[in-house]
């Protein structure tokens, strides 16, 4: 009884061996590889990443024993990098999930709801956008004891605005389409129209936006950890590792260099995947990037 969905393109894009698509391959390879590393961290790098090393091993340069060197407490940098991937990916994914759920909810309500609701929600969105995000994050995160949960919540609560705008714009154009008019004409309830008829057609937009945001969230987390506001010892985080090497830029260059490269590789992977998905799922648009 549902009239044809306009979004056959999405279904078609996902048919067949879509993961072999050249546009998706680099991003998929990097993100899947890093995901595996995070999941299998205890197997790949056995031993406690926080355990202190021998005194002779402190601040040792990369060698065959410690491929990426050791830190001030003699801990193996490679082991810590492998374990640190868990924090970055967890924060990236969870905070983006929160932001996407919030943004999609707000966007749908604004795009499909009555006009006054649209105005109200868009003004709230603009108010949030009118604020340097990092400032708001710092303010909120520094108010109580730093924790990973707090970082994820705050990043999620400050990252939904551009998703809301995207979803609203898409919903506004979808509500004019025949199949939505038909669904409404059949007397279906508003939530049913929103979730069964409109939402599935928004999925490509939402998936692309989510992927492009993971990188931004990982960057934000690393900066917070760099400032000491993110994950706390004994948890390992790449940003905190960079902070620990900051006073040893020359004598211990590996302390700052490698965690930074790890962050860069992860973020680049998600950005490449997001770009690839955008070209594949949403060929007409390349309008919206990600916010700071």
């Amino acid at each position, binding site marked *: 009884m549902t009239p044809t969905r306009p979004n056959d393109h999405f279904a078609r894009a996902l048919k067949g061996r879509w993961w072999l698509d050249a546009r998706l391959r680099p991003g998929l390879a990097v993100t899947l590889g890093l995901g595996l590393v995070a999941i299998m961290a205890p197997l790949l790098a056995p031993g406690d990443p926080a355990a202190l090393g021998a005194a002779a091993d402190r601040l040792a340069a990369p060698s065959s024993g410690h491929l990426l060197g050791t830190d001030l407490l003699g801990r193996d940098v490679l082991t810590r990098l492998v374990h640190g991937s868990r924090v970055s990916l967890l924060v990236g994914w969870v905070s983006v999930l929160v932001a996407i759920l919030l943004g999609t909810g707000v966007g749908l309500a604004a795009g499909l709801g009555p006009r006054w609701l649209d*105005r109200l929600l868009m*003004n709230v969105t*603009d*108010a949030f*956008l*009118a*604020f*340097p*995000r*990092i*400032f708001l994050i*710092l*303010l*909120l995160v*520094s*108010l*109580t004891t730093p924790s990973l949960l707090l970082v994820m919540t705050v990043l999620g609560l400050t990252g939904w605005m551009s998703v809301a705008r995207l979803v609203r714009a898409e919903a506004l154009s979808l509500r004019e389409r025949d199949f939505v008019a038909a669904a409404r004409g059949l007397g279906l309830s508003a939530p049913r129209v929103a979730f069964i008829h409109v939402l599935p057609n928004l999925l490509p937009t939402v998936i692309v936006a989510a992927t492009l945001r993971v*990188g931004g969230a990982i*960057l934000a987390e*690393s*900066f917070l950890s*760099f*400032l000491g506001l993110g994950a706390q010892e004994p948890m390992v985080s790449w*940003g905190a590792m*960079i902070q620990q090497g*900051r006073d040893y*830029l*020359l004598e211990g*260059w590996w302390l*700052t*260099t490698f*965690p*930074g490269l790890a*962050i*860069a590789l992860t*973020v*680049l992977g998600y*950005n*490449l995947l997001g*770009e690839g998905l955008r070209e594949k799922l949403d060929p007409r648009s*390349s*309008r919206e*990037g990600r*916010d*700071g």
Partner: protein
Amino acid sequence: MISWLARRVAVSILLVFVLISAVFFIVRLAPGDPLDQVVEQEFGTDSMDQMRRQLGLDESLSRQYVKWLVASFRGDFGTSLRQQRSVGSIIGEALPATLLLTVTAYLLHLLLAFGAALVSADRSRRTLDQGIQGVGLTLYSLPAFWLGLMLIMLLSRKLGWFPAGGMHAPDARFLDRGAWLVDLLHHLALPVATLALGSFMGTARHLRTSLAEVLDQDYILSARARGLSARRVLFNHALRNALLPVITLVGLSLPFLLGGAVVVEVVFGWPGMGRVAIEAIWARDYPVIMGTTLISALTVVAGSLLADILYRWADPRVRLSSQEAR
């Protein structure tokens, strides 16, 4: 146009008001206050209470709020709880430093973005274009604070070409004008490079898409058909129209730039608003937090207002369509 502008300005003012009011309550409702840093045993509970009274922290939230509102309206942002100086003078010192940093960085950012986009418009330079895209996307994926540290490590600590941080050499006040300026630019180079290199690809991609769309239009074809040179078509016909969407982007880049300045100021010890704000947040220095919040909110809201005005001025079509739409 006038009534639209009046409404838009009114909404902006309301927005700033709501924002800083929200920050006022968030900061004060959070656990801890400015005296937490003072060790309680050292002073005893009695004198702590007395200090709280002096600072007006014992009054009810609503009274503190009203007091603060009235004072702010008069342009009095209070005195820093930590530095015993007026918030106005602290900001007055930090704001020019941040403006110098962000404006210079933004100019370089635009220059790089336009360069990258123009290369991509020239179809004979495919390889160069792809190279720039790759390098740009990689730079875009780097943590800015780490990029800064790497530049310090290589160009400052290792090679000694640039100072590692700060805004002036210790002996800057004894230098004559020219040498003073050279010293300032010398200190400015790495922070500006960090900010611009890490971000220009965002604008470049928008500009690139916009330019590609314009180059597909019929009037470009007709300009070419009239025998105009490729350069002339690109600059006089295509670029002008491709700039329209970018104007909005310039306004929206402001919050982003201010955010980037926070990162860069921390890494390079640049004495600007970002550092002042972070130090104030650490110390729960309420008046300074409110002052820096107000200034950044004002800047951002003014930026997006300016972008809206420019956009309407540059593109008459918007005036018509926006009247119908909303």
